[in-house]
């Protein structure tokens, strides 16, 4: 099987890799670049857990060959926060974003870090924290990327437009209500 040398930008950093023809972008991100924020839920283009931005547009990274991303600009969930460890270069790659316990708004007393100052969360991340749009978190990276992409192309989406834009992101936990609320808040 042929190997291909590729160069691409991932979260603002230039990366070079040699990849076999059959490696997906998802596998390259997770296993070569150790950016494990992007999840593999189905490897069939159905669940959206693997969603990343490719040249500004969301794609299922399990449905893209790594070699096809040659020359492309990729943003993963690790690249959403404005001063994430990866971007600041303090931590090794693949360290996922810090766990931030959000204010649930219902009187829970877990320690609250708004995250805003320390990590420069993107507005959409902050909204997911504020409104508890996260339970197990497996769908969250894909949800955040799809939502970010929606807000980039349509800054004030209606509820129907939000649901439509997220229809390729399955969540088995939240029941979606809080996710839709969070996107509204971030809009």
């Amino acid at each position: 099987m042929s190997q291909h040398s590729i160069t691409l930008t991932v979260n603002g950093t230039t990366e070079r890799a040699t990849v076999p023809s059959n490696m997906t972008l998802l596998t390259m991100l997770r296993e070569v670049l150790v950016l494990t924020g992007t999840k593999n839920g189905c490897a069939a283009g159905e669940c959206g857990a693997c969603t990343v931005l490719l040249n500004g547009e969301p794609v299922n990274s399990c449905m893209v060959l790594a070699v096809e991303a040659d020359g492309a600009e990729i943003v993963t969930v690790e690249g959403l926060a404005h001063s994430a460890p990866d971007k600041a270069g303090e931590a090794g790659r693949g360290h996922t974003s810090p766990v931030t316990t959000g204010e649930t708004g219902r009187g829970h007393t877990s320690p609250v870090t708004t995250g805003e100052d320390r990590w420069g969360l993107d507005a959409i991340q902050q909204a997911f924290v504020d409104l508890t749009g996260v339970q197990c978190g497996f769908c969250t990276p894909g949800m955040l990327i799809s939502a970010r992409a929606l807000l980039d192309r349509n800054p004030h989406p209606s509820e129907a437009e939000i649901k439509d834009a997220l229809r390729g992101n399955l969540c088995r936990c939240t029941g979606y209500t809080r996710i839709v609320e969070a996107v509204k808040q971030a809009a």
Partner: protein
Amino acid sequence: MLPTPGLPSFDYIQPASPADVTKMLLKHDGDARLFMGGTDVFVRMRDGFITPKFLIDVKRLPGMTAIKFTKRAGLTIGAGASMNAIARHPAVVEHYPILAQAIDSVASYQLRTRATMGGNLCNASPAADTAPAAIVLGANLVLYGRRGERVVPAEKFFLAPGKTALKPGEFLLRIEISPLPKGAVGKYMKLGRNAHGDLAIVGVAVLGYPDKRAKSGYAFRIALASVAPTPIRSPQAESVLMSSPITPEVIARAATAAMETAQPISDVRSSAEYRRAMVKTLTRRALEAVVDLMHGT
């Protein structure tokens, strides 16, 4: 158990020219496959249904992702243009909204960043959402092969499930859609198992336009997805609508005629009986919507 992320081995090929593609296809008969967005090919490879040795990425050939529109020539869509790029193209939104409706009914936004109309047509699934739209829009498919280019109307392109008019060595270069008759309006209606993005149980495309030669004053084109071995047109329903003034009763008769054109099977998505009944319902609704639009209500 975690899904396997890996695809079986193959060589990824970026061809230099259309002639290159044809050469490869002929040389590696059966072992070489084209792909555009890969959203269908990759899944079928992963599931072991196909095992190509070579995957030819044709979307980087010159012009393959271009979308062009002029008032005189109409719309030209490169076979590798993404569904999202097509559905958001200003000319499509303005002049061919039925195409955007069909595309928006496919899967999810992020999948449509990759999925192409060219791939959707060439896979020749009976359920392909863009096929009935292409048929009622009178789309022409420009194919490239050993003898250069040739044109096949969308209506003649589909031969059987997964089978098209493409000959060995041939592939789709672009889709051409002429300017529509004056006053034409269209509607694509789809029923899936859920409201969003599922494969069609039934898909119905209707295009209507004023036509002095028709007794009703209007001509219609009606095409159906997912209810026959290929996407099909329903000439019976169309002629009902040509021959008498458009009333609710005539619309109902046309919907019944469309139902009678359908030869559906029962599968995991629906029984044949349900499909037939839904062809009637969706055709009626699509016709009502088109008639309303034509009357400007």
